[in-house]
């Protein structure tokens, strides 16, 4: 049923599987070693970003809520898993150190040792209340979903209830992200201030497994998460639910007058996508190795919107393509690998000019190709959209336009 309605799902999964397999075969751990571990990690991270972009596409491309705060949920997920990684890893080290003492350590001493190790940099020796469950992987994994989920639920409930929408909602989500980032920047908030959490690439209990192997495991995990999320998203948007959220995007008031609980639908999609973003973050940061409050800066969430816009919103594969294309291109340009452009009178160093290029490209895409990169796929598949340019024919925004009526 789903496949018949969305043939792209099969193609997408096939491409994803082939990509993962090829990378595995060429990796250092399980194959020829043609792809260095750092590149495998880059691919894994990119898949996580694609997952976040998928969530962004659901909430923005389909439901029309331009959230500028989804990267905050992404980072929150990272923080939740990072807490366990850091705690458990430090616990291993502290236990090993204390084992050399003539007298075995009490649990209190172990905890104090861990707290001193982790929070020494911010001048504290006590474990904050927020780290109560940091030693327990199961609870912390649950918190990866629960904390951003609850956060998104509360925020969304407050915002949608008072009918904050459109650009107001965007600005409000941006403010929320900024507030969260500022809060995390404080040393006494219990998340190590601007030091953030580090050493996350060392997985506790897997000290003997080389990073090359771990990177492949994370690549597979990221690919699996992306595949599953893609199926879930396609299933969601293909059914009645999908029709309702698209209708909300196009004209919220009409959907409300038809008797649908607009707030409920929006709240559901907002919270769900926040949780998907959190999962993406929880997979991303162990590969990145470090997380700090700068990751929550409002600009990060806007980049998420940029990826989706460039890839093509309202198309699930568009978001994925956009995220992969832009973030790989971005790391190529900013990594200094791109050749300098020689204009004769001025040499363009792409490390400096990439942002300008991205900004301009973004403006151009918004102006001339609202469907982004996926319009190429549309053109290949022979899909055409009605031309919604021209003067209004009817009394308001939803009415047919001149060109549309001619077509």
């Amino acid at each position, binding site marked *: 049923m789903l496949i018949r309605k969305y043939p792209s799902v099969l193609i997408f999964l096939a491409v994803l599987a082939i990509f993962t397999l090829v990378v595995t075969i060429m990796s250092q751990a399980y194959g020829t070693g043609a792809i260095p571990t750092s590149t495998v990690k880059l691919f894994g991270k990119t898949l996580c970003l694609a997952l976040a972009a998928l969530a962004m596409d659901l909430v923005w491309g389909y439901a029309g809520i331009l959230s500028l705060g989804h990267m905050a949920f992404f980072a929150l997920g990272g923080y939740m898993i990072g807490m366990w990684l850091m705690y458990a890893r430090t616990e291993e080290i502290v236990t090993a150190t204390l084992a050399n003492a003539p*007298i*075995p350590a009490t649990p209190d001493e172990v905890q104090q040792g861990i707290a001193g190790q982790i929070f020494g940099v911010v001048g504290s020796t006590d474990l904050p209340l927020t780290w109560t469950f940091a030693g327990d992987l199961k609870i912390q994994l649950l918190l990866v979903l629960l904390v951003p989920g609850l956060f998104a639920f509360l925020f969304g409930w*407050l915002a949608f209830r008072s009918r904050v929408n459109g*650009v107001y909602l*965007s*600005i409000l989500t941006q*403010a929320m992200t900024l507030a969260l980032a500022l809060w995390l920047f404080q040393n006494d908030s219990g998340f190590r201030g601007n030091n953030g959490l580090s050493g996350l690439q060392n997985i506790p209990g897997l000290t003997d497994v080389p990073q090359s192997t771990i990177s492949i495991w994370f690549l597979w995990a990221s690919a699996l998460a992306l595949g599953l999320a893609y199926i879930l998203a396609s299933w969601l948007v293909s059914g009645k639910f999908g029709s309702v959220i698209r209708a909300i995007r196009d004209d919220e008031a009409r959907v409300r007058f038809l008797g649908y609980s607009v707030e409920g639908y929006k709240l559901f999609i907002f919270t769900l996508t926040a949780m998907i973003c959190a999962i993406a973050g929880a997979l991303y940061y162990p590969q990145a190795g470090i997380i700090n409050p700068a990751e929550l800066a409002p600009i990060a969430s806007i980049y998420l919107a940029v990826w989706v816009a460039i890839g093509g919103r309202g198309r699930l594969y568009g978001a994925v393509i956009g995220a992969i294309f832009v973030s790989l291109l971005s790391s190529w340009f900013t990594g200094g690998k791109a050749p300098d452009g020689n204009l004769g009178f001025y040499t363009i160093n792409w490390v400096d000019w990439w942002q300008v290029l991205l900004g301009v490209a*973004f403006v151009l895409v918004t*102006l001339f190709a*609202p469907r982004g990169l996926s319009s190429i796929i549309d053109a290949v598949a022979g899909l055409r959209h009605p031309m919604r340019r021209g003067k209004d024919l009817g009394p308001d925004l939803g009415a047919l336009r001149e060109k549309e009526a001619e077509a």
Partner: protein
Amino acid sequence: MRRLLFCLLLLIAAPAWAQDLQSVLDANRDQIEKPSRQTIGPVIAEIAASGEGAVAFLEAWGDRRVGVTDDGRFAIIDGDAAADAVTGAAVAGDVKALKPNSGVRGLIAAALVPAQLADPDTARRRAALDALGRDATAEHLPALRASLDDPDPGLAARKTRLERLLTVRFDPDPAARVAAIESFAGDTGADVQAALNPLLSTTRIAATELPADANIARNLGVGSDLTREEAYRLLVDAELARPRLSDAEQKSALSANISDGQVGNIPVANLDSPDARDRAYRALAAAGTVRPAASADDVDAALESHVFADIYDEPSAEVTDAARGTLNGLVFRERAQQSVDITLDALSLASIYFLAAIGLAITFGVMGVINMAHGEFIMMGAYTGYVVQGFIANKTVSLIVALPAAFIVTALAGIVLYRLVIRHLAKRPLETLLATFGVSIALQQLAKNIFGTQARPLTAPDWLGGSVGFGEIISISTIRVAIFVLALLFLCLFLYITKRTRMGLNMRAVTQNPGMAASMGINPDRVAMLTFGLGSGIAGIAGVAIGLFAKVTSELGSDYIVQSFMTVVVGGVGNIWGTLAGAAMIGGLQKGIEVLNPANTLAAQTWMILFIIIFIQFRPRGIFPTRGRFVEG
């Protein structure tokens, strides 16, 4: 007059056995040549009392200008020449300079104060008063009292004040001290507080019972005023109880006494709980290997049988009461002044937000066009100011040129942005947001490429550099006053343009109903473009103003953009009074929260944003919502 005063001083300071300088110097030759801080005091006093030449000798000695000649006479060295300390006759031959250490020089300086206080030279009297204000002892009080009658009225007032301050500190008669303390009621001077605060210093004591004559500040209850740990530590420090064993000490004692893998008959492997460790330690103590530690019962008993109190170091209760009364009065006045200070601070922050947001109030508020590159226009204005300063050295002229230049540059940029991007995205606010965001990314990076990442200075002219003071404590920097004035000016300008000009009329017509406006012969597109240019231009001027007190970086604008949008949204879109109210609210709130937790401005911002999010729940359309048929949604 001077002679008279000096004689008077001598009468006070000089003992009956006063001798002339020569005999004093001769009698204390060894001491003077190798002075020690402990024993030189009486000698200095004797020299000071010895009359003619003593002051000159002491001053020279304090400046390390006294030497000993070959034949053993003291001489005062002046550059290359030297003169006999007593007779003043020139001295030939080698003079070995004496090097009194800083402690001794301090004593000499103190001994000179009475003489200097009565010196005919006003500058020296002032210097002596300054020295006395910094560091005075009980001996100076009579000297100061003797010299109260100063010909210079300013110095006389200072002497009177200092006399009262020294009375507070050194007078032996409590009644005189109380009178002096009470005379300072309502005086907020820092010197008064410095004199009064030490009177209220306390020492925390623990004793079986409080001494009868103690001047008790307050009795302390264990558990309420101080924790059990603190109380017990006091007892231990006073050697009234045995110290408890810290965990680390216990651990090291245990590990020092491991035998056969056991400590006190408990296997080492089992010592991983505090309970087991206590048992092992008790077993060791019972065997006599370690000293017994105070048990929990001992602690209880010790805390029960002792009292704890804060005791004033000052023995006289009347004095401490008077000092506390006067200080409390001061604290109240200070609070009042501080709150005025905070209000001014909040006002200046609010005017900054207002300035940053007023351009936005036009583009976003009136036209409904969301421009995320607004912050970059602010930055562009600041950089324009910086560039203009590079061409024009005179700061005042460059500022006068920079303001219209910034307006023109950013207004043009705004018009270009409108023509190229925003016009094509009419009625698609989310797309406008994104496209202008792309512009913002590009502009920011462009600024980085052109001006570099380091902050560029935008120097204010000197007349903006100082501060305007009201009273002693409140002072506000001139630049903030200028920004406040600028904000007011822009408010008036905005009101004038919208309410009194043709352009404003067109603007209002187009924003209310573009179709109807067009049929009245107004070109909506042109009006919208000019309006956008106006809003952007004002952002540029705000940029110059902000750049004057903040460093100009490419991130200057993005630091203000969220707050600016908040200001407009909180105030109510489409209403300049709303923007004003929003700026006042956000500025006031941020400063208000900062007062509660002054060390943490980050927390203040966090809470402020949270408050705004909640505020929007209750007034989704802002403080002054726009009403009418043309309101969307």
